[in-house]
């Protein structure tokens, strides 16, 4: 039992590399989000899995069976396209029954299954309506039902919710996740919306410039980003350049920090989330490095309602801190203060490579 395995999947278009040796193991029943900025190769990777793009290199295996050269129409994966790609000449029910019709299922069985699937996506009673008469959210559901009609081994969705308005998108994210859990179907969704990925995924695959940077749970991607790109792309973070001066101590702008997990020497990059940064109203002089405090001045402050955001100038480097309104320290813009970077919250990353 090993479910879907991507083994160095590569796609080249002429001299440009869209996907660069993507390797990944997706166990059965997982909800996977391919997340990254536009043009990072996530859609190309999904299309290779669907069989709509031919890989330039690498292999694709499902349950230890090599399907790299299997044509799309015999893979039996369900796919929802960004444009939904509903057939305009067919009704909602006929769209859903299309894969059954192709397989020569009887009309009555087609009809029964279409209604069953409409029930599943909570859209009963629209089987006879032409797709042009359906709303955006309804079309979405029809597209999902159609992709699930053959009970596929793999359910693929390419930015499925991008056409919906914000409120409906939120609702559909939760619904899609519940549907996936109920069916226990291995699902891969392409999205550029990290909130969407965090909401739905068991496994978030962060991609950039054709490479997989990290594949981990949403919490791990957020708390333990693998590199500077992931740390910066997922949520808001502070990135500090540092130089290890002695074992366990790193020199950063504004002072030295004591941290575990440091390499014995060399340059590092530290990532710390704004909500982990603690703002102290006193100036940093009295404190010492063992407390991991850096002196700075408050350059900007704003109240976001559920939290207060501070932008602090530490030796020319801006550090962002978030605190709960009730924990708000008594500081004013322009005033001196110190920021505490707790050792357990600083993630040590390899130094940024110029890209």
């Amino acid at each position, binding site marked *: 039992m090993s479910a879907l395995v991507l083994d160095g999947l590569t796609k080249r278009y002429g001299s440009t590399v869209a996907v660069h040796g993507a390797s990944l193991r997706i166990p059965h029943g997982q909800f996977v989000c391919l997340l990254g900025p536009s043009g990072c190769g996530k859609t190309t990777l999904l299309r290779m899995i*669907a069989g709509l793009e031919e890989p330039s290199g690498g292999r694709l295996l499902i349950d230890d069976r090599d399907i790299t050269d299997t044509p*799309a*129409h015999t*893979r039996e994966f369900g*796919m929802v396209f960004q444009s939904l790609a*509903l*057939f305009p000449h067919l009704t909602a029910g006929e769209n859903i029954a*299309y894969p059954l019709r192709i397989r020569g299922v009887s009309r009555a069985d087609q009809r029964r299954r279409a209604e069953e699937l409409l029930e599943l996506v909570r859209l009963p009673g629209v089987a006879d309506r032409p797709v*042009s008469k359906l709303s955006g959210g309804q079309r979405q559901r029809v597209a999902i039902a159609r992709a699930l*009609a053959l009970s596929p081994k793999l359910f693929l969705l390419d930015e499925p919710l991008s056409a919906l308005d914000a409120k409906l998108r939120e609702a559909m994210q939760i619904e899609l996740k519940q549907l996936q859990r109920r069916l226990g179907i291995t699902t891969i969704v392409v999205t550029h919306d990290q909130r969407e990925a965090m909401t739905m995924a068991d496994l978030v695959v962060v991609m950039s410039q054709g490479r997989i940077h990290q594949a981990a749970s949403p919490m791990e991607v957020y708390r333990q980003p693998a590199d500077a790109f992931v740390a910066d792309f997922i949520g808001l973070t502070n990135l500090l350049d540092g130089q290890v001066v002695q074992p366990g101590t790193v020199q950063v702008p504004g002072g030295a920090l004591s941290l575990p997990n440091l390499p014995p020497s060399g340059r590092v990059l530290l990532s710390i989330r704004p909500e982990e940064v603690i703002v102290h109203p006193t100036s940093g002089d009295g404190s010492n490095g063992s407390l991991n405090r850096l002196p700075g001045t408050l350059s900007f402050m704003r109240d976001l309602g559920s939290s207060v955001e501070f932008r602090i100038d530490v030796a020319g480097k801006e550090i962002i801190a978030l605190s709960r309104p009730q924990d708000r320290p008594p500081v004013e813009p322009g005033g001196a203060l110190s920021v505490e970077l707790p050792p357990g919250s600083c993630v040590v990353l390899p130094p940024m490579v110029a890209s």
Partner: protein
Amino acid sequence: MIRRAPRTFAEHSPILFPALMLVVFFVIPFSLMIAVSVFRRVPGGFYEPDFVFSNYERFLTTFFGGVMSFSLGLAGLVAAVAVGIAFPFTYRLVRLPRPNQIRWLVFLLSILSLSEVIIGFAWSTLLSRTAGITNLFVALGLMAEPQSLSPSFGALLAGLVYQAFPYTVLVLYPALARFDPYLVEAARTLGASPLRAFFTVVVPALRNTIVATTIMVFVFALGSYLLPQLLGRPQHWTLSVLITDQAIYQSNMPFAAAMAVFLVLVSLALVGLALLAGRREEVA
């Protein structure tokens, strides 16, 4: 930009010029033709005003019926073959990279610039015994000796399809360019082979476009006049040839006019049908 319908005379004025042109160059001549079609022929002379239907009664003869059904059948066959070739061709064409598409379209437009006479003689040379393609087949060892393939029904059909092909592609092009290629990919992920997807998704989704284009090519081929004489035998002559024959050589203007009226009415009816098919697709 005024969005409401025009009301005053001044607002209607832009349409006056085209309306005038249409009246002077279409409505008046066509009315004259209708008038002539009920006139009486004077044997040995020309014709004189009258109100008889004898010219239309001649439609009931087997000779006329034969020519008529041949013309309609030929036009239908040309339309079917032209659309049958042009549809898959255009389907591929719209998916080519832009520069290649432009090269193809320029090439097709240059075919349109050829006159019917040139097309006719080019095809009759190509299909002739002395200089035609059969010589090539002989050189390749596919044939024992060169043959003449023209005049024949096949030659006529080939010439007419060749002439109609660029029009067909140009009419199909916009609809196919707008066609969402993801529909085919969706069909493939749902288990349809590329060929199956073409026939279960592309063709039915564009059914009205296909119908409208077929009717247009049908009307185009129905008026063919020169190619049947250049590439066909006398039994392949169409209604247009017969009209010319009656009008010029037999001096039977009333009968020619009656046939012409009939041809125009059939064409108009078909154009109306094509518009109807096109309109229904807009709604869908």
